[in-house]
């Protein structure tokens, strides 16, 4: 039922954009916690989009890693800091301008790439088909080098983070 799926796609895409917008600029609340919660909702909607693409593994990992772990840690930090000052802070006009510019740039890139993209047929797109095994093969056979580089990058970041927290190690 392609119509059905399309309906879901537009609904989820719309919600993703709305939640994303509310994350950055919420007219009702300036609480960082609220922003973080909208970011969680954005991530959940994106997971829904992955599901529509039959990328179940990605959807699950998206929720597990981003919503379940990363955002919780975000919230954790926000809650522990005293953010009363941030709630009162005025909007910096220069920052808004710069942010707008970069948003425009990203939007341009996106539009350009969408225009350039050649629509593929439904069957051809189902290479991975959500199969974990297929994804694994893709990662460890054809994309082994970038994957490993990323792993090293993550490791470096982790070691760095630990070094920063342990001040007396210096």
């Amino acid at each position: 039922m392609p119509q059905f799926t399309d309906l879901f796609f537009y609904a989820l895409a719309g919600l993703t954009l709305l939640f994303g917008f509310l994350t950055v600029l919420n007219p009702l609340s300036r609480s960082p916690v609220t922003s973080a919660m909208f970011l969680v909702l954005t991530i959940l909607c994106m997971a829904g989009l992955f599901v529509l693409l039959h990328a179940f593994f990605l959807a699950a990992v998206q929720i597990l890693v981003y919503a379940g772990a990363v955002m919780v840690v975000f919230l954790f930090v926000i809650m522990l800091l005293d953010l009363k000052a941030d709630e009162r802070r005025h909007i910096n006009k220069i920052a808004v301008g710069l942010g707008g510019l970069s948003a425009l740039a990203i939007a341009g890139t996106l539009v350009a790439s969408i225009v350039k993209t050649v629509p593929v047929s439904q069957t051809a797109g189902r290479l991975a088909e959500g199969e974990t095994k297929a994804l694994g093969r893709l990662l460890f056979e054809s994309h082994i080098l970038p994957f490993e580089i990323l792993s090293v990058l993550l490791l470096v970041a982790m070691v760095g983070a630990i070094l920063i927290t342990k001040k007396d190690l210096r």
Partner: protein
Amino acid sequence: MEAINYLNPTAQMILFSALKIGVVFGVVMTAVAYAVLVERKVSAWIQNRVGPNRTSPFFIDYLPVIGPFLVKLGIFQPAADGLKFLLKEDFTPNYVRKVYFWLAPAITVIPALLTVAVIPFGSNLGSEKMVIADLNVGILYTFGIVSLGVYGIVLAGYGSNSKYPFLGSIRSTAQMISYEIAMGMSVIPIFILTESLNLSDIIRYQAEHGWMILKQPLAFVIFLIASFAETNRLPFDLPESESELVGGYHTEYSSMKFALFFLGEYANMIASAAMMVTLFLGGWTMPFIDALNLPASSLLLGFVHIGVFFAKMAFFMIVFIWVRWMLPRFRYDQLMDLGWRRFIPLALANIVVTALVVALFNN
């Protein structure tokens, strides 16, 4: 009944799914209510007490022998408890952050109930598979949903705007994130062995090759202990340790909102028990009896499978309750130490060893 066969497949699927969702939801809710009763009864017995034995509805007078016995067992206590929760004053302190305060109990319950969706609690009844959604990434789905359960507790602490709930929620969050990692890693060897993330496939594998608990005892132990931590049960109930934190993250809650936290905790216990049964105890299968090891060929067998599954689950529930009175509460640093420095390395080692064994012997 014949009319069903004339419906198109989609309508059939929607109908049966709705039916299954309804039944499973009802069963889980009942199970939660009675888990509370079992908890109270077993706790009482372990402590040389009697436990609830008073609640008797009006019709009990018409049941001569069985009635008083049921009353003595406290069979009607959950109904009374539920009624009490509904009728109690719902108190909202005026300093709370209202939106999050109201949201938190709901966010706690929903993931706990959603997890049940992918559990194959029986083989099949007729041609219908006894699982609501037979996802091929079932286990990942479960972990993903469970990880969302943290939000309920975080927001409860944040929304209550009060120090005990806040400290409780912080502890809880750290504890749950930590043990999620150990839990997730502990099950990877199972996937290496079964070569699938689908829970039905895992059960099928166990029916053929024997229960996973025998092949992966270490993974089972880690998973079991991690699930204690994930469900905030003793000996890891630090988020609500009443001697330090009054009531932890639900200190400020009352009436139905408190009942939802309660419900969420027990629903989580049920989900954990179901996961353990599925992953390590062969789900609905029974070894040595072929009729029970294969998908059901008749309606009766189908029900027997469901019965077997529930029996195994009940066993784990009793374990959850029993352990509560066996061990004292862990200290927070001990808890973290156990999670990060014992279980994660052990789980990693287990993965490596399993992978090596599979690589060496299977080819």
